[in-house]
């Protein structure tokens, strides 16, 4: 129960961060990616603020023997730089650049009730589920 409530709180804080930062607005994301046009560099500050906070925070957290509400830390152990990683990242980048939504902001923007976001989010979830079923992981 504690693990579920803490995940809910973390999701809310994450969503608020996406809203405060402007990351939830695809127009802002596309202008960040449009270096040759009407460039809005704001989102570089989102990445710096988020990665910087996690860099410092993880140093303290991962020194502990275990998380508060779970048995162990689930940190990725894969190290292979393979075609799947690079191909998947390239695909994701193309989709992100087409309309300006990545998974987190798409789900938070869904909470505004805007119809185009619903269309994107349903397609995104279908794309995720499609691949998951295909590879049977």
């Amino acid at each position, binding site marked *: 129960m504690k*693990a*579920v*409530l*803490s*995940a*809910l*709180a*973390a*999701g809310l*804080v*994450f*969503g608020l*961060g996406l809203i*405060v*930062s402007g*990351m939830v*607005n*695809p*127009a802002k994301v*596309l202008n960040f*990616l449009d270096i*040759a*046009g*009407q460039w*809005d560099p*704001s989102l570089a*500050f989102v*990445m710096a*603020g988020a*990665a*910087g*906070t*996690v860099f410092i*925070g993880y140093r303290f*957290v991962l020194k502990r023997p275990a*998380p*508060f*509400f*779970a048995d162990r*830390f689930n940190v*990725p152990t894969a190290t292979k730089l393979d075609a799947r990683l690079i191909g*998947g*990242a390239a*695909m*994701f980048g193309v*989709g*992100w*650049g*087409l*309309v300006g939504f990545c*998974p*987190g902001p798409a*789900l938070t923007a869904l909470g*505004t009730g805007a119809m*185009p976001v619903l269309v*994107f989010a349903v*397609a995104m979830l279908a794309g995720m589920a499609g*691949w*998951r*079923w295909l590879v049977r992981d």
Partner: protein
Amino acid sequence: MDTPTAFTPLSALAGGVLIGLSAVMLMALNGRIAGIAGIVGGLLGPAPFNGLDRFWRLAFVAGLVAAPALWFAVTGAMPEVAVTDSWPLLIVAGLIVGAGTQIGSGCTSGHGVCGLARLSPRSLVATGVFMAAALATVFVTRHLV
């Protein structure tokens, strides 16, 4: 067609810190990486789940989706979400984003925030590739076609 936006470094930085705090919370409390593609993907496959694994994932997603309601309750306004694309383009992009994040094992949060913070070589490469692909895509769609 392209909506102009203002440069907002302070709110961008503040929002980034909130995103980072959320990721630190999720690791400290539940021992999990705050990668949205991974959290959501874990709900969508055929693999069997134990109940708790599914519940924390659903709770995190519920928090993400509920954030605008909380924002509205506090500020009295919905966050700005300007989408100008056609439905066919939204569907194509959604499918590519969804599949791409599962094939590449991460998105902007998992690779771009948590992975970079862990100095993971895989995440460094993935972030470079998806940033380059997104920049190239915007350049092509806005300046070449």
